């Protein structure tokens, strides 16, 4: 890539820049700042589209009473039961059980606090969904 071709498609980097190593007119390598590249913005956008779509599906299930609010927060933080079990310290089968409303509603504050601290929220926020 040559210096004049460095893409400047503003997007996912926000206010920041990425570094590209490109050749200048003399064939020397120089560092050059890029504020983004459109193909990458598209690929990143698609990833978020799917994440949000899945999250909307989960939210619907929570509203219907098929899943607990924990499932919503877990997916919002892009975790699965395995990772959440590593973060919270609860066994995987317990996390899986807590994803069901019946088990979740019976949890005491100690357990809820541990989950809430994983997501950096309060217990009240953990019980709620938008």
């Amino acid at each position, binding site marked *: 890539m040559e210096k004049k071709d460095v893409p400047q498609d503003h997007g996912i980097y926000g206010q920041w820049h990425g570094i*590209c190593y490109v050749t200048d007119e003399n064939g020397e*390598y120089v560092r050059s700042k890029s504020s983004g590249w459109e193909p990458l913005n598209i690929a990143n956008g698609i990833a978020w589209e799917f994440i949000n779509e899945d999250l909307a599906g989960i939210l619907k299930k929570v509203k219907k009473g098929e899943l607990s609010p924990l499932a919503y927060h877990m997916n919002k933080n892009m975790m699965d039961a395995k990772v959440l079990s590593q973060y919270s310290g609860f066994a995987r089968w317990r996390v899986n059980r807590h994803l069901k409303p019946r088990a979740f509603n019976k949890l005491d504050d100690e357990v809820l606090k541990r989950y809430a601290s994983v997501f950096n929220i309060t217990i009240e926020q953990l019980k709620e969904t938008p």
Partner: protein
Amino acid sequence: MILKSIDKEFIHRQSAHCESGSTSNLLLNYGIEASEPLVFGIGSGIFFGYFPFIKVQGMPTITFRNMPGRILKNTAKRLGVRFETFKFHDPEKAMDALDRVIDNGVPAGVRTGVFWLPYMPDAMRFHFNAHTIVVYGRNGNDYLVSDPVFDYPVVCPRKDLMKARFAEGLLAPRGKMYCLSEVPEKVDFSQAIRKGIREVCYVMIHFPFPLIGVGGIRMFAKALRRWPERHEKRRLPLYLGHAIRMQEEIGTGGGGFRLIYAAFLHEAAHITGDDRFLEMSKRMTAIGDRWREFALYGARICKNRSSDGDNFDRLSDIILDCAGKEYQLYKDLWEIVK
């Protein structure tokens, strides 16, 4: 344990990739002027691996760089620099250890999970656990962080940094921290460059595992051809987008690290005085640009939501072309450094 203080404000130099960047920045602050591409090359950073059985957010792992931590280790070994590495179980103890080090004026490299770093742009907050940053000081509970992929140093609160250092999941950092403990007076770059290139040639051509190196690129191309049949049509753009992101997202310097490596070969020519590296550098640039073509064309397919088999054949052909060119390049490089 000998740790030296740097006795001055930490110099932050923005770089394309986090690990080679933080290593290069640490060395720079201790008086060894090694640019990022140079560290990347000496650390044998360039790589290819296609691991469909290791899932990242449910998708196959495609990596263009070697294992996190290898660049640091290789560079240290080949330049005669020594690192002191620390690992922790208890987050509080890990932070206290970091405090002790930076309060003495010693910058420390720290492994973190990107998801918990508050200064990350929202669009890039994914669970990626091998992000290396340098912490060089603090004001009470606000840590001064030199994150090599950002324009200038940033500030990170204690509780976020603690969480980032103990991120869980694939490649969990477990509070890993390292400081320089011994720096030689003089370093021999040209020997280190040769050793770095030799390892790359071995791994990319001869590594006895089919999913690694040029063979891995070919396997990936083959798998890509079958994607339209094997995956749900709706989710195809997601998979293709994932491949593009692994190749281009911040930290690769474009073209899946190929352009950084081209810069390294260019610098190698100047340091060793061997003009054959210049020629190699030009070829590597062309390969990097070809990889970028894959991203460009792939993104177009994603955008149009087309799952036409022909399109994927064409993508696969681009990658096969890259594989062929890379194979020849590493063979020729081997002739130079053997």
